[in-house]
């Protein structure tokens, strides 16, 4: 069994064991088993990084076996520079959410922890699948645990949110399924991505396929105007669910653009790049403005996620080295920052049971240590140099200016809006005199919460100060991808 299989199946197996054996009487044991499972899942991804040959664009740690003979589907795994960091990010985030849910979740602990571990395995599967059907199975399978996480442990309007999440994303994926089957038929019965990269496809077919993939991935990213599910879902999801959703599940969509739309449909991608850039800019500017007027902290961060993911898609569809690497860096950094933002909101919510900005004020007086962390994450969300949030946005803006000054200018305004909504929220929640008695009675974060915050803070700072390990891994794969995208596949 290869390392990637271990990375996928370790958390899933531990999750299944938790589902089968756990009872709430043994919640303590369940938590420790879950933590050990998550740590084991992280541990098996470490050799992926240390053993990764930097500077090579080839797939590494490849595993291939026949899976469904009748349809020529293979269990084909492999990572390149594009997916490696996303795999690591997934395993890392799983450890974080397990710790973050430690005392907060008291009911059906085994199902909660099991769902997150299984979800983690599925998502690593998405990032390492090299067979389209394997990709689709993992991609869709993530819906089931997330649906249950939102629906069981969510807020008051959780049922609406769970259904909206499931059905919204299912519609997109089903259209993609038709596109996958169409490509399977056209390629003479192969689901291998490498075959599809070489397959010539006509102009009209490319456009139709492009929009079928768009339906699946744009909903997941989410891009404007199909982003409306995200705020609703984030508001109702439990803290851990929001963190995983923002940190990783949104990346499944962006990753899909890189693995499917761009290399398989290069001509349609170029043809419709204007649309993608326009939608991305709308996400960056308009949704940034929408974020500013939110009263609910989670909604604010959710809208800011949409704006940040706009940078990712913008970077991809400029078709330059810098833009694409910038988009990838932004994916990873947004993973750290958005998870941190949601977990910080979770810390407050666990104490006050409100997400309304108006219910807070002056938290810094009673929770100084926590406020320091929150300030760091807020700055990172605003894209302050020296934090993870800066690197990707800066790269994308430079690439945009190179491509077209006006696109660059519009994209750069996001830094202003980002700073505005992030800092304004920080001011209203943390600064000033304590807003009410509940805030006066708050106790600062305990050791467990400190650990979670510190781990994320280290990641955010490290990536902001020294992004070279990230870009070095990504660059060859990005160059290879751009080479694919530059070749027309029209006959």
């Amino acid at each position, binding site marked *: 069994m290869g390392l990637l299989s271990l990375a996928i199946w370790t958390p899933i197996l531990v999750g299944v064991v938790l589902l089968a054996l756990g009872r709430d009487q043994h919640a303590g044991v369940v938590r420790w088993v879950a933590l050990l499972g998550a740590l084991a899942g992280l541990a098996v991804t470490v050799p992926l990084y240390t053993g990764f040959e930097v500077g090579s664009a080839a797939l590494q740690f490849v595993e291939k076996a026949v*899976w469904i*003979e009748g349809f020529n589907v293979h269990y084909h795994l492999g990572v390149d520079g594009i997916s490696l960091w996303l795999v690591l990010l997934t395993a890392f985030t799983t450890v974080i959410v397990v710790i973050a849910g430690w005392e907060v979740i008291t009911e059906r602990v085994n199902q909660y922890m099991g769902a997150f571990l299984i979800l983690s395995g599925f998502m690593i599967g998405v990032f390492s699948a090299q067979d389209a059907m394997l990709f689709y199975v993992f991609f869709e399978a993530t819906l089931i645990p997330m649906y*249950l996480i939102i*629906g069981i442990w969510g807020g008051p309007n959780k*049922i609406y949110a769970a259904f909206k999440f499931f*059905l919204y994303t299912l519609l997109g994926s089903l*259209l993609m*399924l*038709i596109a996958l089957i*169409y490509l399977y038929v056209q390629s003479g019965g192969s689901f291998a991505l490498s075959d599809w990269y070489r397959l010539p496809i006509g102009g009209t077919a490319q456009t139709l396929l492009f929009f079928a993939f768009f339906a699946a991935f744009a909903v997941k990213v989410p891009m404007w105007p199909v982003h409306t599910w995200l705020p609703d879902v984030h508001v109702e999801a439990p803290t851990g669910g929001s963190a995983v959703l923002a940190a990783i599940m949104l990346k499944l969509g962006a990753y899909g653009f890189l693995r499917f739309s761009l290399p398989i449909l290069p001509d349609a991608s170029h043809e419709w790049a204007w649309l993608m850039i326009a939608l991305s800019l709308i996400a960056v500017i308009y949704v940034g403005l929408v974020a500013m007027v939110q009263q609910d902290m989670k909604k604010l961060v959710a809208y800011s996620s949409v704006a940040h993911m706009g940078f990712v898609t913008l970077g991809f569809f400029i078709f330059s080295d810098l833009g694409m690497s910038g988009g990838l860096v932004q994916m990873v950094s947004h993973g750290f920052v958005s998870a941190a933002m949601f977990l910080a909101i979770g810390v407050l919510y666990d104490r006050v049971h409100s997400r309304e900005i108006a219910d807070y004020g002056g938290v810094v007086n009673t929770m100084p240590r926590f406020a320091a962390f929150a300030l760091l994450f807020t700055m990172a969300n605003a894209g302050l140099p020296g934090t993870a949030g800066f690197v990707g946005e800066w790269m994308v803006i430079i690439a945009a200016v190179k491509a077209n000054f006006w696109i660059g200018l519009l994209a750069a305004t996001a830094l202003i809006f980002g700073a505005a909504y992030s800092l304004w929220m920080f001011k209203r929640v943390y600064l000033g005199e304590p807003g009410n008695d509940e805030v006066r009675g708050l106790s600062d974060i305990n050791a467990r919460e400190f650990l979670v915050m510190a781990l994320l803070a280290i990641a955010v700072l490290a990536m902001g100060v020294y992004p070279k390990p990230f870009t070095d891994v990504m660059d060859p794969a990005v160059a290879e991808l751009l080479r694919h995208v530059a070749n027309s596949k029209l006959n």
Partner: protein
Amino acid sequence: MIDKLSWVAAYPEILLAVMTCVIALADLAVKTPLRGSTYALTLLTLAVVAVFLGMAGASGSTIEGFGGMIVSDPMGNWLKCFATIALMATLVYGRAYAGARDMLRGGELFSLSLFALLGMFVMISGHNFLVIYLGLELLTLSSYALVALRRDDTAATEAAMKYFVLGALASGFLLYGLSMVYGATGSLDIGQVMASIAGGEATLKGSVQVLVLGLVFVVAGLAFKLGVAPFHMWVPDVYHGAPTSITLLIGGAPKLAAFAIVIRLLVEGLQPLAVDWQQMLAVLAVLSLLVGNLAAIAQTNLKRMLAFSTIAQMGFLMLGLMAGVSGGDGSNMANAYSSSMFYVVTYVLTTLGTFGVIILLSRAGFESDTIQDLAGLNQRSPLYAGVMAACMFSLAGVPPLVGFYAKLSVLQALLASPSTFHVGLAVFAVVMSLIGAFYYLRLVKVMYFDAPTQSAPIEASLDVRSVLSVNGALVLILGIVPGGLMAVCAQAVAALFA
């Protein structure tokens, strides 16, 4: 005409017929309220028959018997094997339920079920219009009696009457259609009908109108039996009114037999008319997907909802069946029909799990047949909630559950010839399955997100518990490794065209 091979071809039917009579007689001596000995003997018989059928199916041999009136081929043997296993699971799930509702005063439940199974066997093996019709009548007459088995229940009696009247009408349609085909081709034998139409003799006599008119009646009769719109009216009422264990008996294994006669009549017999009947199936598919999915949303009764869900699922099956021949090119036939077979087999597996849980939740004096009765099942029993959730996600077609691969294979067969018409149908089908996902998810929501309204402990004997667990596990395991069952279906259907 009757040679040694004839007996070999029919030995599962003969074994089953003999044992059914033995069980009916032996039951006279059984006095225990739950008929333990009859039950054990029935299961033993079915297990032996299933093993023989599985071995016959795996051997891949095709034997004709009784002058070509019946055939023992891999498709038939596998379908009979699956139908036998499905009946075993049905009886395991339903015995306690039937016992609590005064349906085990005699052993009729077992002997009638066995006769119904025998009817299915004859339908599946029949290679002659009359033999198939005989099997169908044996199955349906046993089913009418089974629905009415709860004799002091008005709903069940009403359902039995409806089922009988509409079922008789459907049989009439089928028989009328078959008689026209007979008139046009001069033969009742499926092979000869095929040869006669393909050779042009039937059309030479100027009887092509008769032939196509007959075809319309045949398709209508089959549509009645499969329960696809617009011939679906009996399905919700009968599913709802029949005792739940009998609902499973009607909605489970017989679908396999219905699939078999569709293949025998339309593909093996009337394949040269595929252009005609595929159009009809396309209409049936579209209507079923529409009616089934939309009507299911409005249901509050669980059994009615599942009835409409069945209509929608059968609509999906129609899509697979109509994908075989496209523009006169039959190269996709094996692919399309094996995909359809995979679809129907996995559908039956999932239906068994679903109804298994519903039957389990019913107690003496309490029918667990509204959606709200499932509320908070996850808190009462994570295992059964898990089985039910796996079945629901499977019916909705979400990977990694087996229902996804069923939908995948049908869509793949449909798109093998990517004409605009087929692509349009595929898009329509996935949009409809999105609507379908809503009501399947609603059941998951009720089980997982709502608080329990019942607190009675869920009691299940060891046999029910283990079969239900295996059933749920299969829905998941076949979703992770579906290749084996797909290969069985491909081998079975390939033998038809060998």
